[in-house]
């Protein structure tokens, strides 16, 4: 009977229980999904960085992919070669690596029981398990291996990224976003739960009168919460795994395109119990924190105030956070600064809004509509104080959504501009391995009717500092320098930068300029192809596609000994046909087939990858907004309900029903508009933090600070709709009541 008494509130208010359950499920799903993906990514990073150090790959000189036949040929020739097959398996498909421990036994691997060393366990599987799967086969050899048989060449083999640190930063960003969502969820869950407790307060008091001790009530409440949390967290974990599977492909594409990091998985994905434990701890922690004390009841005469510390302390905390964000040398300090700002803002905003409402109420005294207008603003002040927690949570959620949307949209528009710049030619030709690209260049130079073309060589270079320290960078060489590149928008440049480049200058990408503090006009000592060259920096270019450092030189200025790792041609065919160009190059290079790609299709593919890249981030921010909006809807409705007696009094005093409903609508809209207005400056500030502080620290490049008022309006409309729904629900409730409630002392309405 006691259990029935304790749970009777939710029997009559099932929507509250459903809202609470929904929030816990969705939050668990989000947290689990992100944890699974970032966990996989971190494991993949470890695999990449540790597992394949100091190994090379064997490639065929004719450019054809290696096969089992080549493996046999190499082993027969006495070469210690081992197969390495990257493939997928399972349902849903996860990426795994098939290895042959027996073949690897001849490597200089660290001592281990099976000779495989750190390659044991997921994502590594025995080759026999995946031999028949389609995938990418490589043949690895140790660097000390002697000469290779004819028809084979050695090539550096690296799974991962020289960008490990930046990939880690990307993952750290995702973790930080997830933590922010977790924090917001905690506030929301606590708000809804404690509103329910406040409504049940009279029942608890009644039980106390009946002789039921507070401790017994508390034990039952704790048990109720534990059961609810268990019931919700478990399906949330399952949904989170499904979310990770759904978004995993896009996430993997993002890591691959941004950081050359492959996302490896395990065929037997373990249940992420850690995520479940975290969510349970969060829900139980925020709800049971102050035991049975419900939300504070406040009156106009005794405003809620900041609580533990006086207001000025929170204000100073926010200012310290602002300064910390501006000066922080690393991501962690930026996050701490953001946390301080959020803490200060979160405590001060509800009281600030309430005081604004009080000011508006005082101004209404002289107006013709004084009584109702004044009443409306005074009610609003009470609501801001009593709904402090959900107001703050919604403010944070909206600010996060605004900032993430601005970041992604800025990135998207900048990325598209950059793509359009880099893919300005119509055609793209990849130079096959083993052919002499110079003959191709000669052919194109002699071909009449071509609009423009250039050859691109990618390779490695080394920067030497004044103290002799070496920094490896990527190198891009373009020749000839034509209109295909001279139209680039440079972040900084000398006069006639492209002419200066052709005269022996060098350009650097933004990532390198930031990390090495390179400036225009600075002299750089760069080693290319074994030669040490001093070059003047004539330009800094944006390079959003990759986080690695890069230098750009004129291809004609490259030393003879330079061996490019990868080459291509960009061509505007003009009057020549694609077939004609393909025929000429095929004949010159004496190959069977040549693939010429349409850059427009590459651009479309890159955009598609981009969309996938931010799918997870958008999903996180949209779901957060859904959670926060639902919370405000539920809490707003419940809170308005507790004050419905006062709305009914308006009717008692002669205000027509339509006018009462109008007052409700205005009140609800003022509530949601107030929240939107305080979310906007926080969202704009957070946008600046993302594009100007976090992005450069994490990715090495900055984005332009842009705001998108269109999205603000969309968000404002969503909030207005929530307000109107609340007002409609309450209006319906008031119209449905047959009589006035006898006695205001039954109502838990705040101050009386």
């Amino acid at each position, binding site marked *: 009977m006691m259990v*029935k*008494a304790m749970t009777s509130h939710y029997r009559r208010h099932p929507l509250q229980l459903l809202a609470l359950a929904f929030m816990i499920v969705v939050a668990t799903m989000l947290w689990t999904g992100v944890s699974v993906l970032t966990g996989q990514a971190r494991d993949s990073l470890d695999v990449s960085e540790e597992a394949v150090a100091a190994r090379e790959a064997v490639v065929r000189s004719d450019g054809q992919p290696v096969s089992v036949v080549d493996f046999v040929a190499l082993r027969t020739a006495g070469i210690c070669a081992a197969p390495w097959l990257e493939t997928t398996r399972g349902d849903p498909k996860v990426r795994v690596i098939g290895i042959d421990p027996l073949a690897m036994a001849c490597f200089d691997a660290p001592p281990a029981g099976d000779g495989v060393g750190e390659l044991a366990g997921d994502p590594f599987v025995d080759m026999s398990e995946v031999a028949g799967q389609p995938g990418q086969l490589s043949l690895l050899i140790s660097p000390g291996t002697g000469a290779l048989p004819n028809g084979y060449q050695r090539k550096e083999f690296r799974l991962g990224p020289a960008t490990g640190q930046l990939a880690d930063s990307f993952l750290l960003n995702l973790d930080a976003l997830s933590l922010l969502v977790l924090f917001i969820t905690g506030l929301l869950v606590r708000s809804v739960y404690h509103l329910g407790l406040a409504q049940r307060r009279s029942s608890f008091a*009644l039980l*106390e009168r009946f002789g*039921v001790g507070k401790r017994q009530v508390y034990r039952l409440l704790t048990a109720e919460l534990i059961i609810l949390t268990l019931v919700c967290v478990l399906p949330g974990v399952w949904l989170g795994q499904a979310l990770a599977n759904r978004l995993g492909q896009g996430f993997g594409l993002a890591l691959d395109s941004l950081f050359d990091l492959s996302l490896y998985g395990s065929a037997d994905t373990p249940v992420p119990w850690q995520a479940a434990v975290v969510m349970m701890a969060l829900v139980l922690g925020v709800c049971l924190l102050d035991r049975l004390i419900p939300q504070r009841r406040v009156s106009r005469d005794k405003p809620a105030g900041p609580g533990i510390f006086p207001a000025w302390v929170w204000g100073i905390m926010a200012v310290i956070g602002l300064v910390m964000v501006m000066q922080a040398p690393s991501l962690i300090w930026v996050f701490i600064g953001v946390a301080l700002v959020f803490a200060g803002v979160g405590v001060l905003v509800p009281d600030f809004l309430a005081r604004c409402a009080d000011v508006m109420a005082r101004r209404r005294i002289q107006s013709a509509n004084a009584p109702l207008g004044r009443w409306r603003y005074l009610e609003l002040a009470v609501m801001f104080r009593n709904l402090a927690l959900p107001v703050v949570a919604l403010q944070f959620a909206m600010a996060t959504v605004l900032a993430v949307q601005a970041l992604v949209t800025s990135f998207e528009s900048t990325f598209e501009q950059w793509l359009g710049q880099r893919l300005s030619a119509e055609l793209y030709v990849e130079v096959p391995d083993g052919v002499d690209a110079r003959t191709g260049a000669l052919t194109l130079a002699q071909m009449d009717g071509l609009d423009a073309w250039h050859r691109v060589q990618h390779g490695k270079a080394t920067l030497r500092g004044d103290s002799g320290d070496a920094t490896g960078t990527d190198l891009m060489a373009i020749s000839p320098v034509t209109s295909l590149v001279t139209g680039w928008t440079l972040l900084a440049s000398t006069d006639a930068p492209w002419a200066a480049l052709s005269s022996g200058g060098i350009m650097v990408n933004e990532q390198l300029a930031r990390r090495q503090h390179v400036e225009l006009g600075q002299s750089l000592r760069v080693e290319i192809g074994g030669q040490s060259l001093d070059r003047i920096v004539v330009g800094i270019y944006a390079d959003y596609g990759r986080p690695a450092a890069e230098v750009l030189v004129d291809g004609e200025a490259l030393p003879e000994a330079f061996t490019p790792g990868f080459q291509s041609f960009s061509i505007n065919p003009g009057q020549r046909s694609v077939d004609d160009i393909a025929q000429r190059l095929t004949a010159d290079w004496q190959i069977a087939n040549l693939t010429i790609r349409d850059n427009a299709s590459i651009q479309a593919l890159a955009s598609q990858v981009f969309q996938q890249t931010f799918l997870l981030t958008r999903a996180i921010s949209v779901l957060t907004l859904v959670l926060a909006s639902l919370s405000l809807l539920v809490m707003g409705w419940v809170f308005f309900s507790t004050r419905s007696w006062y709305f009914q009094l308006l009717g008692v005093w002669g205000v027509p029903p339509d006018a009462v409903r109008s007052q409700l609508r205005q009140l609800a809209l003022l509530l949601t508009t107030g929240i939107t207005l305080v979310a906007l400056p926080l969202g704009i500030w957070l946008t600046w933090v993302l594009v100007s502080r976090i992005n450069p620290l994490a990715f090495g490049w900055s984005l332009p600070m842009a705001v998108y008022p269109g999205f603000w309006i969309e968000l404002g409309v969503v909030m207005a709709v929530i307000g109107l729904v609340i007002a409609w629900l309450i209006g319906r409730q008031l119209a449905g009541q047959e009589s006035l409630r006898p006695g205001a002392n039954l109502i838990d309405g705040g101050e009386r």
Partner: protein
Amino acid sequence: MSDVVLDVKQVSKLFHSGHDRVPVIENLSFTLGVEQSMAVVGRSGSGKSTLLNLLCGLELADSGSITVADHLFTSGRSAVGPDEASLWAALRKQRIGVVFQEANLMPAMTLVENVRLRASLAGQSAGEEMHWLEQLGVGAQAHRFPDQVSGGQRQRAALAMVFAMHPALILADEPTGSLDRQTADEVTDRLFDIQQTNRCALMLATHDQVLARRCGQCLDLGEGA
């Protein structure tokens, strides 16, 4: 067990308002036996509700002693010990039935569920709920929620709850305060009938002179503080 259910000796209660201490009840003494009834009257603010709260442990006296059903509570201590709080709770659970003017029912349970809850807490077996509700004239409303019935019906249901626990002492604060004359008379009649039948002591705080005259004793708290 003696026939004295309630024995109050030199009980005082002060209200603290800032630095001031305002006496609400001063050196009050009285006894109440089985089957006896007492009306507590006085102007608003004279301490009627406070007295009832003291007699069921919802508030603590600043001095004096209260004996309820042979359990002695001596006040004057700055904080109640855990044993004393538990004892008061046990008494409210099984021996003392309390009825206030409003908010006596769990809002999310029907009338019959409320009665069943109260009886089960008191250790009484199930099955008598409908009997008591019908005795108090609200049997037809048994399966409705409190906000679906009138104030008078709620008060009757609250009384049914109290009688279902078979208490030794009933404390009622303005039990007919929100009722019309006719309903108040009906409720009063049932109240005293059942009180006599169940041999419990009854103490009422009331402004209602008709109700006060029905009681065997009258305690006038006068003008109060």
